[in-house]
Every structure is written in C-alpha cells, then in structure tokens.
C-alpha cells in the first residue's frame, strides 16, 4: 500500500477502472495531452489513447449530454468539469436529463455516468474558481452527489461511482488535492455511496463536515480533546445526496449537540438540510441549538488574499463554535 494524496488517488482510481473495464472512458476539457489543469488525468491519454481520454470542445452541456448518450450505448463515461463553477451550462443535462432517465422510462434506461468537478476556495481562484456548488444538486432525486475528503475514500468511492448504474456527481475539494497523503489500497477496495464515516468518536458534541473544513474540524477536535478534554464526534457524510441520515442521527442522539460546517454560502447550503433532519428526527435528544458554520452570504471568495481568507470559515471560528456548543 502506497501513500497517495487525493489527486493521485483519483488518478489511480480512474486508471484502474479503465484497465479493468474497456467501456470506461474520460471526456472533458484539457484531459488529454495536458492531463487536466490539475493533472488528475496525467498520462492516461498516453495509456488509453485519444478516444478513451477525449479532449472535448469547451461546452459543458455537450460534455454531460454526450456522456449520457455514450452511457446508453454501452460506455461508462467519466466526464470532467474543469471547475465546478462552470457546471451551470450542464445543469439541464444533469438535473432534467441524467437524473430522470431511469424514472421517466420506468426503469428501462440507466445512465451510468460519473461527473467529476473540483470545487471549493483556492488561493487566486476568486469568484469563478472557488464555488461550493453542492446545494444546486442536492434536491434532485435520481442523482447521487458524493464529496469524499480523504484519498483512500475518494479512490474507492470513485470506483463505486463509475460502477454505479446511476448518474453520480463526484466533487473534489481542489484545495485538498495535495494537502495530505495517506495509505491508499491498490485495488478492489470499494466504499459504498450510502455510508457516512465517523472519523473520531466522542460523547460531547457532534460535528458534521466535509472537504477542507473537515480537516480543520478534525484539527480543532484534536486540540479541544487534548487541551480541554472535550470529546468531539466528527462525522463525514461522504455522500451528500441521498445522505446517510442514520449515522448522523445516531451520533447526535449520543452527544445531543450538533455543529455543521461547510465552506458553502451558509444560507441554502446542504448544512441546512442536515440541521433540518436532525431537528426533526432527533429533537428529543438535542441539548442545544443546531449550529451551522459556513461562508458568508456573498457570491464567492474574492481574489485578494485577505478577503478570500475572511470568506473561508477559520479554525478560530470553528473552535469558538465548538466551544460554545460544548459549554451550552
């Protein structure tokens, strides 16, 4: 087992699936010779040729639309959207088409496609290379939305996504691409798309988070444990839609306190859904208000570093919220 970062893990997941299944292919902008703007697909065109790793025109509706068409004719395409901010032109093909083929044909047509999209704030990315777009897609039955955080999960879930007969939107927080390395199993390892992951057990408060914020949350949780003996249970949904409610509810039923953290603009974010589920299903267990932390309700992160940093929930703010909750 080798140590890999998120980027390498996703790369490997793609390569292994393409090796073991001829119908798996990649299409998107600059995925070929360039190997993707983040280098996720580096070397794949050399190995699999220019058709199975296809540079498309700059046309996101086409990318997803043609992926749908490929999938109904025997292929398992992995479509790359260069930045999640540029997914809107493909919105119709995703929410009205891919997500509804199966239902509207009463189960006759499946759409086994995976759509990869790097999201999240990154220095210099500014308004259009920073957005957390998950909420746009988490009200669409028929679609699965996954957002793994750690390399091994990401690789295994990518494999599950590619093998899944349903359309899967696969979100990658681009600021975590090279953030950490961990052991990533070589092959076979699959993580299902309907299970949250408990990263850390604890009886005092529950924190639900994903992406970059999950790292910060885990850090702060460690600190609070060490310094103050506050034990945080940290739950990562991994799949945002449909979500594993059970694991989250069980945790909150144990701790009685919930903090949800994401990097998205707070109002209307997926955090709201999590809070709503908990306040309906675990109300009797709650000992404190469900608190959400997120980015402020401004369009997106700014280019200038000081404003960008201000946009992203900081470790300090997260610590303050966790403390507030623990002491409630």
């Amino acid at each position: 087992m080798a140590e890999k970062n998120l980027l390498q893990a996703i790369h490997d997941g793609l390569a292994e699936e393409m090796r073991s299944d001829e119908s798996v292919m990649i299409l998107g902008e600059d995925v070929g010779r360039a190997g993707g703007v983040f280098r996720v697909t580096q070397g794949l065109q050399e190995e699999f040729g220019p058709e199975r790793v296809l540079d498309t025109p700059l046309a996101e509706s086409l990318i997803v639309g043609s992926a749908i068409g490929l999938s109904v004719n025997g292929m398992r395409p992995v479509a790359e959207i260069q930045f999640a901010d540029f997914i809107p032109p493909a919105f119709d093909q995703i929410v009205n088409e891919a997500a509804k083929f199966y239902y509207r044909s009463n189960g006759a047509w499946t759409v086994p496609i995976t759509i990869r999209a790097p999201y999240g704030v990154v220095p210099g990315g500014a308004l259009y290379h920073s957005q957390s777009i998950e909420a746009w897609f988490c009200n669409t039955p028929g679609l699965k939305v996954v957002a793994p955080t750690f390399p091994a999960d990401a690789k295994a879930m990518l494999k599950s996504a590619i093998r899944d007969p349903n359309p899967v939107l696969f979100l990658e927080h681009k600021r975590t691409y090279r953030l950490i390395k961990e052991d990533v199993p070589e092959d076979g390892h699959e993580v299902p798309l309907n299970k949250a992951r408990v990263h850390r057990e604890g009886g005092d408060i529950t924190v639900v988070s994903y992406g970059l914020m999950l790292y910060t949350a885990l850090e702060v949780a460690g600190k609070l444990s060490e310094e103050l003996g506050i034990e945080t249970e940290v739950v990562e949904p991994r799949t945002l839609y449909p979500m594993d409610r059970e694991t989250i509810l069980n945790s909150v039923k144990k701790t009685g306190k919930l903090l949800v953290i994401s990097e998205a603009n707070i109002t209307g974010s997926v955090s709201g859904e999590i809070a709503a589920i908990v306040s309906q299903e675990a109300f009797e267990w709650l000992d404190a208000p469900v608190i959400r932390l997120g980015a402020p309700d401004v369009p997106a992160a700014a280019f200038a570093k000081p404003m960008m940093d201000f946009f992203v929930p900081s470790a300090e703010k997260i610590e303050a919220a966790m403390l507030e909750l623990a002491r409630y």
Partner: protein
Amino acid sequence: MTTEKTRARHETLDLEEADLKSIYRAMLVARRVDERSWILNRQGKAAFVISCQGQEAAQIGAAYNLRPGHDYLYPYYRDSGMTLLLGQTPRGQFLSLLGKKEDPNSAGRQMPGHFSSRELNIVTSSAPVGVQYPQAAGTALAFKMRGEDGVVMACGGEASTSGGDWHEAMNFSGIHDLPVIFLVENNVYAISVPSKFQVAGSIAKRAEGYGFPGHEVDGNDVLAVYEAAKEAVERARRGDGPTLIEAKTYRMTAHSSDDDDRRYREREEIEAWRLKDPIIRFEKYLFENGLLDEDEKEAMDAEIKAFVAEASDYAENAPFADPEEALDRVYAEV
C-alpha cells in the same frame, strides 16, 4: 409493376412496391392514431394531445432508413410516425396517451409523446427542447469508438435549433465525423412563434459552417425525405460523418390540445397547406404509378381504423398504476 416512361422516382431510389406500401401504410397509421387521439381528447378522456399531423412524410421518409433495435433514435414529441414505424404499437401509443400503467414509454409517468423503448433503441425523451442532440452525438461516438456501423438519428422542430445544445452537438459531430443524422422538422411554428422570429438565415445552410452537408428538402414529399435520409444514413454508416436534413413542412394542428392557434395564425394559411397534405400527395404518386388503387386504399384504411379503434378501446379499459408506484424506480439498484 413497371411503367413504360422513364424510371419512376421510387425506382431510382431502389424502393420496391412493398416498400412503398409499407411507407404509405405507416403514414396512414400515424395519421389515424393521431386523429383518434383528438377524439379521445374531445371526449374528455385524453388530457393532452400533441400531434404529428402534416409531418408524416418527414418522419416516415427519414426513419424508413433505420434498422430498428440496431440504430438509435432520439425522437421528439411529434415523432409518433417514426416510433410506430420502428415497432411501437398504436396500443402502446394510446396507453401512453391515457397515462395507463402499461404505457410502454413511462408507465404513465410522462406526458404523451415522450417516447422510449429500450428494445428498439428509442432513447427516452423528455420535454426540454433540444437536450437530445448532445446525447445523440454521444451515442454516435460510442458506435464510432467500437467501430460499429450503427447510426443515430436525432430529431426536433425548427425551434430545437435555437438553443445551445443543438449547436454544441453539431460542432462536436463535425469535429469527430460522427455517424449521426440531425433531422429538423421545420413546421413553421414553435407554438405561436413563426420561424422568421425563430431562425436567422437558414438551418440547412448552417451545416456547411460545421464542415458537413446540410440539405433542405420538401418535408411533405416522402420520397424526397427518404432520399436525403438514405444518403445521410449511408454516409454515416460508411464512417464519413454527420448530415443535417431540414425537412420543410407544416404543423397542421394547433401546437397541442392546450393551444388555440387562432390567436396567431390565419385559417387561410392552414387551408393552403392542407392541399399539400403529405399523405394525399403520396397517395397521388402511388395512384399515378399504378401502385395503389382506390379499393386497396379503402381496404387498408378500414383495416387500420379498426385496429386503431381496438387499440384505443384496450387502452381506455386498461388500469392506472397504483398511486404509490410514483415512488418506485428513482434509482437503479447498485
């Protein structure tokens, strides 16, 4: 049967008498199913009708070149003529019209005209106009990648060319010489909007800008459409790339049973087009070439009407899906 004159048009197209009868019959079936649908609507039994009337020649002429279940079809909501030709049944059509459980397209989930057949490679279609084109290009790419000789036909009205999806698909198909035929059934209106406010320049001419052929054909002349589509399908099968066909035709009914077209078009215009009814026109051709006579026609029509009525009755008596079935088949099982 041969004529003494120069070769008849169908002969130069290698169409046998049996082909011509099949084509004619298919057009008539489409028309009769459509007419029956309006009756069910007027009787308050069918909530919604959307019609193929006037476009039978464009549809049958084009689809007659396809191999059902091998080639792929992306039809649009008026293409009942096509789907019936490829193997869907009037019974299925009426079941769909009335939203019954046995509706082969969607088990009562979708509106009528949203065709689907996994066996026939008729890809499930929907209401958002134009989305089928990039999908069709993708399906064609899969054929190309595997070196198979399947072709894909993607259809829409003239307004389906106004949205971006059409263009993105045209461009992509041109870049990769994909085996796809874009069939635009230009019937002059998009609901109320006439084509002069819908289409700048010419749809057919645009193909050149994408580096492949575009043909404008008389969409009410079934042989003309057949010819253009034949060439296009052969070209695609050979691996030479896409073709655009713009079939100029006319929507003989209102947009749908929800529409009142007196708001926006003159009765005279419709009457003028009625004279060009593609079925009457083809009938005339068959009569003139001694391929059909009045008796034969009557007999065929009577037979069609009878089984159409039967199909309609069947559908009327068929049950709805249980309400709770609305919950099923949201996700395919892993």
